[in-house]
C-alpha cells in the first residue's frame, strides 16, 4: 500500500557554483539579521575539501547527528533516545559551542568618522555581536574559504577518510590543489532526525510540501534537534531561546516566488520542484545497508506520469495542479530520470531531499620542466584522473560508494563531448555517440540535460507548485476557526520562557 506525498525538493549543480556567497547573504538579509541569529547561516557555502560550518560538522563521532542501525537493524537516533533524553535533561551533550560555529562580529565603523585627529588613520576594530566587546576574530562561517588555511582545515576534512595517503598528499601538494564549492541549506529530509529528536514536538514536516519547520511557540529550548541534525542546520537562537532553521522561504513559495537563495543565485546552480514519493517506505529505506541507500532512496520517488500514482496521489489529497507541477519538476528529471543528482551524506539516513550534481574536475594543464602545458586535446580523460578523487566525492555523495558518482560524472562528461562535437567539431560525432551510449544517455536526454543545465530560464529552474494553503490549512485546523475574531491586535515575537 503506497502513501503518496508531495515534497518540494532541490538540486544544486556544483559544476556551476562559483562560490560567491550571494545566496548566503540573501538569506542572512532576509531571515537571520535579528538579535540571537547573528551566527546562523541557514544557507552557507563551504569550500571542499574543508571543515565547513560548524567546524567539522561531518564528524559524527563528535557531533553524533543522524541515525544509526541498532542490533535489530532498525534506525535509531545517534544523539539521543528516550532514556538518554531524561538522563541528559539538564545538559544536552554533543552540541557545537559558539566557538565551533564562530563568534559573530561587526566593526566599529563609527570610529572611522568620529575618531579625533591623530597621527594614524582611524581603524574599525571588530566588536563581538554577542558581548559588544572588542574581540580577536578567531574563526568565521567560511574561515577556510578557497582553501584558506588548507593545511589545517582542508587536511582535516572528514571526507578524506576514504582516500589513500597518496591521494591525500596530492590534494595538499602545491599546484595540484583542487577545491570546489558546496552550498548547503536544510535538506528538508524525509526522515528528519531533528523532528524525531524533539521532546516538545516543536519540529514538524509540513504535510503539503514537506518543508521542515520549528514551531516557535512549542520550542522549549531542549536543543535535541541541534545535536540530532547531522547537517547541523538547526540553530539555537540564544536571544529568544528557540531553535530556528531554514524555512525554504515558504512565505515566498506560497506566493509563487523562489526562495531568496535560489532567486539570488548568480551561477543559476539551483533547481526546485515537486517530487511525489512513497511515505510508507521511509523506515524501510532508512534501514538499508549503506551500499543500497542511494538506489532505495531514489526508488521512493514516484513517477508522476504513471496514472496509478496520479490516482493514488489524488486520493492522498494532493491537488491535480501539484501533480502537474511534479511532472514538470526539474528535480524529478535530474534525480530520478537522469540520475545525475545525488543526496549528500545519505549514510546519515535522514533521506535528504536536496540533491547535488557532482562537479567534474578535469586536468586543464600540466607542468613539465617548468613549462605549463594546456591539455585541451585530452580534456576529458579518464574520470579516475579527476583532480577531485572519486573516492572523495563518494564519501560526500555516495555513502562511500563510487558507482553512482561515476555514473553521473560519466554522463556529464559524455554530454560535454557530445556538445563539443556539435559546436566545436574537434570530437567526432561517432566518438561522442559512443561515449553517450556508454554513459547510458540518449541524444534526446543529452539535449535535455544540456538545455536544463546551460540555457535554463527562471521558470525552467523553479517549478513552484501552487501551494493551496487554503486546502493545506484544513489538515491542521478549521479555516473558520478565526472567523469573527481576527484582524485586529498585536503579533508577538518569540521570547524566552
Amino acid at each position, binding site marked *: 500500500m503506497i502513501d503518496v506525498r508531495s515534497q518540494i525538493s532541490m538540486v544544486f549543480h556544483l559544476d556551476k557554483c562559483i562560490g560567491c556567497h550571494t545566496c548566503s547573504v540573501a538569506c542572512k538579509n532576509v531571515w537571520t539579521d535579528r538579535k540571537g541569529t547573528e551566527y546562523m547561516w541557514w544557507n552557507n557555502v563551504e569550500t571542499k575539501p574543508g*571543515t565547513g560550518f*560548524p*567546524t*567539522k560538522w561531518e*564528524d559524527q563521532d*563528535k*557531533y*553524533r547527528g543522524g541515525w544509526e542501525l541498532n542490533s535489530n537493524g532498525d534506525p535509531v537516533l545517534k544523539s539521543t533516545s528516550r532514556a538518554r533524553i531524561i538522563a541528559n535533561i539538564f545538559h544536552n*551533550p*554533543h*552540541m*557545537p*559551542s559558539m*566557538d*565551533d560555529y564562530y563568534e559573530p562580529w561587526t566593526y566599529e565603523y563609527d570610529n572611522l568618522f568620529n575618531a579625533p585627529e591623530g597621527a594614524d588613520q582611524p581603524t574599525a576594530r571588530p566588536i563581538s555581536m554577542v558581548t559588544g566587546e572588542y574581540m580577536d576574530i*578567531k*574563526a568565521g562561517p567560511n574561515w577556510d574559504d578557497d582553501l584558506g588555511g588548507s593545511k*589545517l*582545515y582542508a587536511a*582535516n576534512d572528514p571526507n578524506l577518510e576514504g582516500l589513500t595517503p597518496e591521494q591525500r598528499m596530492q590534494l595538499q601538494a602545491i599546484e595540484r590543489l583542487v577545491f570546489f564549492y558546496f552550498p548547503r541549506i536544510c535538506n528538508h529530509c524525509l526522515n528528519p532526525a531533528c523532528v524525531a529528536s524533539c521532546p516538545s514536538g516543536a519540529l514538524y514536516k509540513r504535510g503539503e510540501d514537506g518543508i521542515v519547520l520549528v514551531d516557535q511557540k512549542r520550542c522549549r529550548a531542549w536543543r535535541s534537534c541541534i545535536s540530532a541534525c547531522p547537517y547541523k542546520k538547526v540553530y539555537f537562537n540564544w536571544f529568544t531561546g528557540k531553535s530556528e532553521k531554514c524555512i525554504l522561504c515558504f512565505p515566498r513559495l506560497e506566493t509563487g516566488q523562489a526562495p531568496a537563495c535560489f532567486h539570488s543565485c548568480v551561477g543559476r546552480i539551483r533547481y526546485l520542484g515537486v517530487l511525489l514519493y512513497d511515505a510508507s517506505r521511509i523506515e524501510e529505506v532508512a534501514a538499508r545497508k549503506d551500499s543500497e541507500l542511494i538506489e532505495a532512496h531514489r526508488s521512493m520517488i514516484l513517477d508522476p506520469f504513471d496514472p496509478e500514482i496520479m490516482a493514488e496521489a489524488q486520493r492522498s489529497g494532493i491537488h491535480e495542479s501539484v501533480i502537474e507541477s511534479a511532472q514538470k519538476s526539474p528535480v524529478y528529471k535530474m534525480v530520478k530520470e537522469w540520475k545525475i543528482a545525488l543526496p549528500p551524506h545519505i549514510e546519515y539516513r535522514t533521506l535528504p531531499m536536496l540533491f547535488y550534481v557532482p562537479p567534474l574536475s578535469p586536468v586543464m594543464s600540466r607542468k613539465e620542466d617548468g613549462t605549463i602545458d594546456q591539455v585541451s586535446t585530452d580534456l576529458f580523460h579518464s574520470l579516475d584522473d579527476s583532480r577531485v578523487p572519486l573516492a572523495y566525492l563518494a564519501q560526500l555523495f555516495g555513502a562511500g560508494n563510487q558507482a553512482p558518482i561515476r555514473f553521473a560524472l560519466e554522463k556529464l562528461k559524455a554530454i560535454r563531448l557530445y556538445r563539443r562535437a556539435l559546436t566545436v567539431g574537434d570530437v567526432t560525432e561517432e566518438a561522442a555517440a559512443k561515449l553517450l551510449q556508454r554513459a547510458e544517455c540518449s541524444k534526446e536526454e543529452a539535449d535535455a540535460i544540456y538545455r536544463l543545465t546551460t540555457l535554463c530560464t527562471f521558470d525552467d529552474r523553479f517549478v513552484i507548485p501552487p501551494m493551496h494553503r487554503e486546502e493545506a490549512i484544513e489538515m491542521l485546523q478549521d479555516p473558520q476557526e478565526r472567523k469573527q475574531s481576527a484582524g485586529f491586535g498585536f503579533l508577538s515575537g518569540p521570547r524566552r520562557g
Partner: protein
Amino acid sequence: MKEFSPLRSRRAVFFTWRKQVGLEAITSSRPRPRVMGWAMILLSFGVLHVETAMGQETEAYFRQNCMSCHTVGGGRLVGPDLKNVSKRKDQEWLIEFVTNPKGLIDAGDAYALAMKDAARGVIMPKIPGLDKAKAAALLELISRESVLEKSQFAGLHITDEPFDASDIARGRDIFTGSLPLENGGASCLSCHHVTDIGLFGGGKLGPDLTRVYERMLGRKNLASWLLSPATATMRPVFQAKPLTSDEIEGLVAYLEDVAKAGGAEDATPSLMLFLLGLAGAVLGLMLVDSIWSYRFRAVRRPLVGEIV
C-alpha cells in the same frame, strides 16, 4: 522634627485617597489581613500554653526536669537527695533557691555555697517554667514522696559489681544502633562519638562521650542522666521514647569501659573525615571524567591547536 517613613507616608496617602473616593466604608468594614494573622498567632500561643500547663502534671515535670540530678530517697547524684528536703530548710528559702539558684549563691548564702561545694562546683541550672507556684507544688510532691518507703523517684539502681564483657558488648551494640532501642529512640551514634567507634566515628551534633563516665562522676549519675536526659536537644527526643533500664545498664557499662580504656577526646576523626571526603570527591570526579571521557568538548579549538 517628624520622622520620615516612606511606608507610613504612602499609607497615609492611601488612606486619604480612600476617604476621598469613598472606599472607607467598604474596606474598613473588613478586618485587615495583617491584624487577622497576628490574632491567629497569639491565639495559637495561648492554646499551647494552656495545654502544656494542663498536661504537664507535677510528677511528670519532676521526672523530666529534676530526676537527672536528684533522687527522692535514692541517694546523692550531682544534686542532693531530696528526701525530706523541707525538713532541712524552710519553704521560703527553698522556693527562692529553686527559682533562682545562682542568685542565692551569688548573694553568698552559706548553705547554698556549701551545696555548691558538695556538688563539686556544679550550680543548679535555672529550669524554664519553674515559677514560685510550680516550686511550691514540687515541694509538696517531694514531701509526699518522702514518707513513702520507696519513692517513684528513687532513681535507677545500678549494680556496684564490675560489668562483664557481654554487658559491655551489649552496650556497644546499643550505642551504635546494631541493637535498636526498645522504645524506638534514636541510637547514641546518631549524635555522639566515642573513640572506640572507628574511622568515621559517630555524629557530631552532641558532645564526644569518650570520657563522659568521668565527667558525670560515675555510674549512678550517668544512669540517672540517661533515665531522663535533660538537655534541650535530648529531652524532646527521649521524653516520648525513654531508654529502658536494661539499655541504661548496658550503656553505662560500655561508657565506663570506654572511659577506663583511656581514649582521649580529640578532633582527629573530623580531620580524617574531611580528608576522606576530599579523597572521595576527587576519586568521584576522576571516575566521572573517565566514564565520560568521550564526551563532547570542543571541535574547532583542538583542531587549530588551542588548549580547550
